């Protein structure tokens, strides 16, 4: 084992740990998802999460009813609704891609979507 070998090993260890740290940082910055608000099947609002809009409320008044949506830190919930059962209010926050809040009487769906298109491969076997 020569000096060059040892240098190579140390260099590779440092490089891989640095890139691991970089990847972890990238993975936890959730700028790749957004809130999609749909009424009667059509997307009426698209909100991308941002630090500046934490706590803002968005009133949504349509021909079917009224909902008040609040944006949190990478999460979203409904705080007011004029529907009779208030299931959407009781559900609380949603934050992960694919989660939905549905208010059937008002025909409203709030969904968190990923910005990137999903690949069509379900499973890879090798």
């Amino acid at each position: 084992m020569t000096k060059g070998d040892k240098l190579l090993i140390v260099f590779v260890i440092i490089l891989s740990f640095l890139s691991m740290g970089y990847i972890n940082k990238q993975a936890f910055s959730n700028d790749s998802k957004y809130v999609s608000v749909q009424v009667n099947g059509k997307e009426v609002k698209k909100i991308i999460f941002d630090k500046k809009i934490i706590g803002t409320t968005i009133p949504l008044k349509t021909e079917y009813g009224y909902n008040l949506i609040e944006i949190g830190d990478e999460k979203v919930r409904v705080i007011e609704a004029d529907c009779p059962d208030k299931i959407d209010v009781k559900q609380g926050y949603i934050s992960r891609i694919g989660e939905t809040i549905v208010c059937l009487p008002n025909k409203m769906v709030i969904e968190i979507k990923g910005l990137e298109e999903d690949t069509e491969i379900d499973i890879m076997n090798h």
Partner: protein
Amino acid sequence: MKRLNKMIFISLLVAIGLALSVLESAIPLPIAIPGAKLGLSNMVILVTLVVFGFKDGIIVSMLKSVLLMLITGSVSSFIYSISGAIFSCIVMFIAYKYLSNVFSLIGVSILGALAHNTAQVSVASFMLHNLKIYAYLPFLMLVSLFTGYFVGLASIYIVKNLKTNYKMLFYK
């Protein structure tokens, strides 16, 4: 006669590489990273590169990949395997020929393992249309440090004995 000797010897090396590849798939690894393996057959390719040269090294690595596909029957792993084998063969040869005063066979083997991983991850990200596969690369690099080190260590002893025993055959 000399050519026949060499041919038989290379086919023996391919057979050893195949046996090692089949054997290593039966050895469980303590870490669950897809794509991480011991790379025992890399030993054979490294030895071929050192004893016989670049051309025969490439031939052995390609034959090994093709025959391994016929044995295991999985085409997708063949694409990963052959791209990694060819790229690591080229890198190992360059490292052995031009940097052998800097690196011993251990360094050459580690460089080959790194090249193998890089090629595999690149091909995987190309095939899945997903750049995020590159997130595996640092983990694979750490694993390949260990496997590359031991493969290089073993190759040093093999090459030493091969060169003394078969000098008459190949270096007349």
